[in-house]
Structures are given as C-alpha cells and as structure tokens.
C-alpha cells in the first residue's frame, strides 16, 4: 500500500533553494530562519550540530565510568551487606541460573551504551556517505541509536522498583548506590547527543544522479 517511487531523481530542498523544517516537514525559502507553521529554527544543514553531538557524547561517556565503578545496589540480608556493580549484579544473576535476565541487564546496561558510544562517534567522524549503500547503512545505524538508546534506562527502573519494594526491616533491604545516578545521567546525555545529530548531513556527499529508483 505504499507509494512506489516512479521517478529516478530526488531533488533536495537545498537544491531547490529551500530550507525544510525538520519538525513539521514544511518547506520555506532558504532565507527564512524560523518555521512559520511550528516555530522551529530552520537550518539547511546543521553543521554546528556536530559540536553539540561531541560535547554531549563526552559528558555521557564520562558519566558512564563511575556508573560502572560505584555500586548500583546495596543489599542487606540479615547481617550481611552486599554491594554490587552493574556487571557484578548481572554476573550474580547468571550464577543463580537466571541467564535470560542476566542477558537483558548486560544488553541494556553494557552492550547498548557501548554500542551507542561507538555508533554516534562513528557517525560523527565519517558523517558523509559517498555512495547510496553507505548512506543507507549510516541511516540505519542512526535510527537504531535513536530507537534503542532509551531502553538502557531499564536498569535504573529495576533499581527503583527493588529499592522501593524490598524494605523488609531486619530481614532484607535494598538501597540504590551512587552508580544509579551516574548511569541515568549517562543515558540522558547520550540520548541528547543522538538527538543533536542532523541525519541530513549523511546525504551531503551523495550525487543525486546515482540515486537508484525505489522498488519499495
């Protein structure tokens, strides 16, 4: 039911002497600086966005280090106090035989954040694609980062639920550790970093004539 493309050439707003609003998709003459429909700032290609991407990336990365060093959870059971870091907690879960849950935590708290740092850095460094296939791969990576990045928050929510729920005085109590704070900040800053990225820059180096007709 989708519109099949019939035409070979795609004309960008920039080539047509226009600037597009990325929020509401409206086109304006290139001289306009604000969208008349939704009020968003108009920039044809947001070259400054890379500075913001990197600044937020660095803050996010710095926060990720203490997030892994400090304990995430403090568990008091009778007279025994356990402090576990993100990775330590997942390893404990794996030892208890709940491999599936351990995998979710490792995926959300280690694989996604590290993958995201790599993906954003890769996109920011090699931003312009020179051929169509590379552009599509980069766009796919960008969409993955945008879509999946938020799910890292899951570990924070687990800690929140456990700390609220497990308050059995004298028997067992769970309290959050400082890592929770740094981890949440790290997720927030990498989300902001990904949002600052302007995906239109990916297509800049691409000659439009090479654009293959669409068979979607």
């Amino acid at each position, binding site marked *: 039911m989708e*519109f099949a493309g019939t035409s070979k050439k795609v004309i960008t707003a920039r080539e047509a002497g226009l600037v597009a609003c990325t929020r509401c*998709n409206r086109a304006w003459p290139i001289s306009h600086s604000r969208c008349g429909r939704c009020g968003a700032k108009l920039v044809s290609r947001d070259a400054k966005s890379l500075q913001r991407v990197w600044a937020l990336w660095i803050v996010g990365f710095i926060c990720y280090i203490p997030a892994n060093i400090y304990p995430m959870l403090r568990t008091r059971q009778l007279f025994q106090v356990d402090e576990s870091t993100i990775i330590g907690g997942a390893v404990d879960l794996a030892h208890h035989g709940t491999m599936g849950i351990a995998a979710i935590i490792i995926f959300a708290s280690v694989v996604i954040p590290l993958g995201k740092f790599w993906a954003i850095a890769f996109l920011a460094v090699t931003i312009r694609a020179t051929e169509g296939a590379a552009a599509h791969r980069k766009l796919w990576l960008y969409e993955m980062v945008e879509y999946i990045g938020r799910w890292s928050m899951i570990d924070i929510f687990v800690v929140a639920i456990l700390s609220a729920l497990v308050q059995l005085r004298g028997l067992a109590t769970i309290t*959050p550790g400082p890592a929770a704070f740094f981890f949440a900040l790290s997720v927030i800053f990498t989300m902001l970093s990904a949002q600052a990225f302007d995906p239109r820059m990916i297509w800049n180096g691409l000659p439009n004539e090479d654009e293959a007709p669409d068979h979607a």
Partner: protein
Amino acid sequence: MSDAATPITGNMPLDELIVCPQCDAAYRLRKPEKGERAVCQRCHKVLIAPRHKAGKQIIAVSIAVVVLIIAASVFPFLSISAAGRSNAVSILDAALSFTEGPLLVLSLLTAGFIIFVPLLRMLLTIYVLVPVVLDRPPARHAIRAFRLSEAMRPWSMAEIFALGCAVALVKVADLATVDFGPAFWMFGVLVVLVIVQDGYLCKWSVWNSLEHPKKS
C-alpha cells in the same frame, strides 16, 4: 498514485511541498488515501500515515490513558512478603525511591519519565486534537502544546518501566513472595494503550490541520 511522493519540478507553492526530515528530499504533496502511506523514496522514512477517524480514536485512547495513569499511581502496585513481614508500594513509591542526596534528582527524573511525561503528553494531545476533530479553530497555543508534546516523545518511558518490572520481579522471586496489586494490571493496559496511541498519531496530519483549520 505516485504523485504524493513525486520529486518537485519547477516553481510550486511552498505549502504544496513536503520535505523529508532525514534526508532533505523534497516532494510534491498529495494526501495519501485511507490505508496508504507516503514514504520517502530515498531513505524510506514514513512522511504521512493518516488513519480514518484517527483523531477521535486518539482522543478516546488518550483519555483512557490519563485515567489509568492517575489510578495506577495511587493504587498498590506490588507487594512482597517474607517471614511474616511485608511491604506494599505504588508506582509513585517506586519512582521516588531514590532519596539520598543527588539520588533525589534521580527520583524526580524517574517519576517524570514513567508518570508525568506520559500524562502530560496525553493531556496535550487531547487539548490539541479536540478542536481539530470538532472542526473548530485550533485551541490557544495549540502549536506550542503540540511542539512540547513531540519534544517529550523520547522521554516517555512507560514501556521501558514495564520491562524493568519483569526483571525486578525475577530478582526478588528467591527473596520473597510477590503479590500484584490492581495498579500492576492497570499499568499493563496503559503501556499497550500508549503504544497504540503513538501508532495512530500522524504528526504531519496534526501540523497540517493546525495550519489549515476546518479544511480536512
């Protein structure tokens, strides 16, 4: 059939164009028929995906979500018991469980991500869409309201919290017995409705109806 996604030619009025926010490709606008979608030829981003009577359905779902969020925040969510001791918590308790020093900030963020951001988004959607559905002029500051609602989209994390619950339950299982309160089931329904609401909402159609009211 194809001209909703036809690249532009020559001079045409700017409000008859739509530009892809991901790759800057400009197209002549033609509103897709029911069940059709306008998709960017170059990067495959969905540009317009209108649904029949979407407005009324979205409003109905949004109202249901508002009621569920409020109810789910106050009713008991989960309770645990072990060796004669027990503890029951609401979702608000879980969100506000970070109480020490800088962790307090984390409490406010968590409460925002799982309760207030989803709630505010639903209220803003109702506020913006009710006049549109009734063929009235847009509500005061409707544009600002919809902008805010769209900006909050990535920060609405109810579905992530739901997966967090599942992980937390497995972690608690060998420590104590867990009982589900009414809010637990309400929250489950709520997560599904939030996802449905998000799928029904065509961003472009809303912007368009705010710009050209009464012309549907």
